[in-house]
């Protein structure tokens, strides 16, 4: 039940409070911090996908100008410095005797300037004995395949399987079985600010302070404390402004551990800021999954069951938060998407490969699973001769089905599945599109319409009995003696605008002006523990905690006011920075007066009440809160070049209560742009021997202003049961856009009967698909 009645700020398109500093060049990112005497680090990285190191001689580098130290894997191993990967498995920050991917860090040079450190890296003498590189995950699964890591018993690093008893029966009874292999390509998130870390060490006291570009301050603190054998109370992580994350700055990296260790060893401020080339090979990669899927249908279009065999190339290590686990396991929970089925079966294999480790990138499971979900349905509609919108509507979870218990075990809270599909179809002009397409065809143009209805499982709480992610978020709300409000939250912002949206929530609960609320986060010395920012949950869970804490604080404020005004709490109202007796506006006390009493005058406080005005909350949300919506898009394909142009794009989004529609739409439009990048432009490819193809932004094509469509955003609001009624939505556009765009291209190419199994849809791939399809039917 929403605690927000008659909100003044929630729902408003308020300009962000963080913007002036960014607009005037006063944002402060990690690279902008430089204490006097800071030393700089550059890493030596493996040029081989897989090799044994037969000799490593740091001597020439140690003697180079400006160099203070060279750190090797041997030294870290001797000091037992490791960080925790998946299921706590230890990972060595620097390779010791075997390199496992191009970019694998081997040594770190510390010098007085970054330039000197980079120069000296070139002087480290290393000899390699190349080993067979494992790149293709299916080949890696084959009998007798070479091992990606000579210490591993097998290339299979993760396996999970669930085939419900009834699923074979459903497939036997089906009138139609659609089978397809969907293969996403490798991408990486590419936040515009590269990763970076600055570590300082106070000797004797033994205190490590780290400024890091991270989505999760407490996670970095605890990860570093464990790796360096320090107590958590002796490590402080401060996350300053962060220039984008998109999942890739969640968790701990080898460079974090190496740089922090160097600070402790040298007793100096030590800093590393990634350059873009090393970012492309050392930031987590993402996607790159194989889905061998099949779905069973009845003649009338009824969707019966889905089975998916997923293979994910985890890269050289299984990270904590490996996409080999998250892409597939979360995908398996929501494979049917907004549609009802009777059974879901899956088999998952995570496979070690000699490529950069897979981690999280916006949407994680979503772009692939939604493509599988919508791709199978489109193929079925075509085979059964049914209308694709009707067939979707027919199978969708309806209003009366909520809360809907999916056969996968998850529960969908209320949403607007059919409504959002209908609205998107209407707005994009679906009813008239056959005519439009025929008209275009007469002019020799190929146009197509794509649809992706989506659900997004957001705001994770205790989604497993012992969840691998922090199942709550925290907030401390403090009213200062002046009556102004300071909020500390456990979620971080790297562009989401928490300083604005969380202030909107708290201002409404406490009846103060929006400008009287300051929101802070990112410093483990001040912010309460929590899970940081991931999985589209900051506003629901972090905002939920802020709402709960503010509500508790309001109760205390009202109790003090009741005492001061000698009136019952029920007769009081809070607003405009004061508490007044309802209907008697003259009998009022300002929040500043309440603050003065609460902090300075025990004798005027209600008997027995603690001094001060502060409340905290740890809000545990439901296991999952589902936002939903629908993307609809019309594209034109140039058959001579294979180029695709987006003609119009509609998004219907239902994320429950919208705190600030500007920010919601910013997330949608930004997500659609990333979807355009995913489908048409970006590819982190590898050669067969494990050499990455795209190590600069010249090779890895991010969407530009001239590549992206104008997106029309429409909103439906089905509130959730969380304190403010919000649902997460930061990833939803990335969940839906790829499937919608791929569907649109396939529809445009329907005269050729083209269906795609691989991404990205580069002009070359589209053109070749057209050529391969014999003749227009």
């Amino acid at each position, binding site marked *: 039940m929403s605690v927000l009645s008659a909100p003044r700020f929630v729902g408003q398109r308020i*300009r*962000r409070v*963080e*913007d*002036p*500093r*960014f*607009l*005037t*060049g*006063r*944002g*402060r*990112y990690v*690279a*902008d911090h*430089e204490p006097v005497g800071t030393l700089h680090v550059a890493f030596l990285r493996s040029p081989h996908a897989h090799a044994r190191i037969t000799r490593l001689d740091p001597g020439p580098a140690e003697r180079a100008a400006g160099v203070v130290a060279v750190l090797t894997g041997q030294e870290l191993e001797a000091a037992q410095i490791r960080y925790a990967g998946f299921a706590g498995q230890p990972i060595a920050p620097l390779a010791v005797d075997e390199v496992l991917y191009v970019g694998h860090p081997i040594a770190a040079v510390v010098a007085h300037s970054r*330039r000197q450190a980079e120069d000296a890296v070139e002087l480290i003498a290393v000899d390699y004995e190349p080993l067979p590189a494992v790149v293709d995950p299916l080949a890696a699964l084959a009998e007798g395949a070479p091992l990606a890591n000579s210490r591993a018993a097998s290339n299979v690093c993760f396996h999970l399987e669930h085939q419900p008893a009834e699923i074979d029966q459903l497939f036997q009874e089906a009138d139609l079985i659609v089978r397809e292999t969907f293969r996403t390509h490798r991408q990486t*998130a*590419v*936040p*515009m*600010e*590269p990763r970076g870390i600055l570590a300082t060490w106070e000797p004797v006291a033994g205190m490590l302070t780290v400024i890091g570009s991270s989505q999760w301050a407490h996670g970095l603190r605890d990860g570093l404390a464990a790796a360096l054998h320090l107590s958590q109370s002796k490590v402080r992580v401060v996350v300053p*402004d*962060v*220039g*984008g994350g*998109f999942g890739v700055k969640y968790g701990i990296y080898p460079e974090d551990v190496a740089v922090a260790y160097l600070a402790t060893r040298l007793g100096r401020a030590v800093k590393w800021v990634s*350059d*873009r*080339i090393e970012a492309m090979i050392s930031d987590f990669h993402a996607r790159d999954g194989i889905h061998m899927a099949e779905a069973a249908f009845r003649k009338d279009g009824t969707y019966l069951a889905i089975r998916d065999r997923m293979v994910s190339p985890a890269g050289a290590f299984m990270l904590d938060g490996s996409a080999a686990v998250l892409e597939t396991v979360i995908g398996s929970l929501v494979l049917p998407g907004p549609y009802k089925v009777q059974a879901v079966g899956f088999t998952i294999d995570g496979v070690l490969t000699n490529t950069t480790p897979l981690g999280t990138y916006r949407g994680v499971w979503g772009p692939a699973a939604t493509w599988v979900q919508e791709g199978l349905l489109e193929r079925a509609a075509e085979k059964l001769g049914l209308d694709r919108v009707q067939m979707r509507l027919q199978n969708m979870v309806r209003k009366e089905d909520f809360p809907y218990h999916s056969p996968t075990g998850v529960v969908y809270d209320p949403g607007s599945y059919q409504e959002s599909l209908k609205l998107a179809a209407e707005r994009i002009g679906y009813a008239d599109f056959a005519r439009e397409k025929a008209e275009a065809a007469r002019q020799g143009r190929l146009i197509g319409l794509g649809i992706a209805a989506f659900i997004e499982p957001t705001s994770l709480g205790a989604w497993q009995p012992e969840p691998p992610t922090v199942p709550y978020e925290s907030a401390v709300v403090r009213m200062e003696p002046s009556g102004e409000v300071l909020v500390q939250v456990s979620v971080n912002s*790297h*562009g*989401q*605008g928490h300083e604005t949206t969380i202030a909107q929530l708290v201002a409404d609960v406490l009846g103060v002006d929006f400008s009287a609320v300051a929101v802070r986060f990112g410093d483990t010395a001040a912010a309460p523990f929590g899970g940081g920012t991931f999985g589209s949950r900051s506003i629901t869970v972090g905002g939920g905690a802020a709402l709960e804490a503010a509500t508790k604080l309001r109760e205390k404020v009202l109790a003090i006011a009741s005492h001061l005004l000698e009136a019952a709490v029920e007769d009081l109202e809070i607003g405009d920075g004061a508490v007044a007796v309802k209907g008697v506006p003259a009998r009022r006390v300002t929040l500043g007066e309440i603050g003065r009493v609460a902090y300075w005058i025990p004798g005027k406080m209600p008997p027995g009440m603690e001094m001060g005005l502060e409340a905290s909350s740890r809000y545990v949300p439901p296991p999952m809160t589902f936002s939903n919506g629908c993307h609809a898009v019309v594209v034109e394909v140039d058959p001579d070049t294979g180029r695709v142009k987006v003609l119009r794009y509609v998004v219907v989004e239902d994320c429950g209560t919208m705190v600030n529609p*500007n*920010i919601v*739409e*910013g997330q949608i*439009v*930004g*997500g*659609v*742009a*990333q979807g355009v990048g995913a489908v048409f432009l970006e590819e982190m490819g590898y050669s067969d021997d494990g050499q990455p193809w795209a190590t*600069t*932004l*010249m090779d890895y094509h*991010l*969407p*530009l*202003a*001239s590549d*992206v469509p*104008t*997106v029309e955003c429409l909103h439906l609001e089905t509130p959730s049961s969380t304190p403010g009624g919000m649902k997460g939505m930061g990833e939803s556009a990335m969940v839906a856009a790829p499937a919608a765009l791929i569907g649109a291209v396939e529809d445009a190419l329907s005269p050729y009967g083209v269906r795609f199994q691989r991404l990205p849809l580069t002009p070359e791939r589209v053109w070749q698909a057209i050529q391969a399809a014999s003749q227009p039917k």
Partner: protein
Amino acid sequence: MNGEAERTVAFTVNGSPWRGTVEVRQSLADVLREAVGLTGTHLGCEHGVCGACTVLVDGRPVRSCLMLAVQADGAQILTVEGLAPGPDQLHPLQEAFWNHHALQCGFCTPGMLMTAWALLQEHPQPTRAEIQTWLSGNICRCTGYQNIVEAVEEAAVRMAGEGGRA
């Protein structure tokens, strides 16, 4: 190392003279950030693609990661810190970016603003297509550009109303 390693350069940044000794191999971006102390100019790629480091050198947009500091000797340089007409004031472009939610993480923003400034110098009333083309040398990973393009449109209108002040 061949030849001289360091040289003294002098230029004007945001109206103030600056003089100092730099390594001849140092980029203008590094000198602005490290020696001049203006960290609003950001480095997103250091290989000339992302545009985050864009500053104006003698009125022209330049990728300061690709220009050597010694090449800027004697130049007039404008960075994002010098865009606003005065303390506690914003340039119409900054105001329009704020109004249109044209930034999220803010990392690309300084480069976007400087490129947009140069665009509006050359085309005070740009078409949407011109804005998209001009901004295509600046990468934003967050916004999807739509709001940035709208902000530049609004700024153009405002600045025309203010007599073309830039």
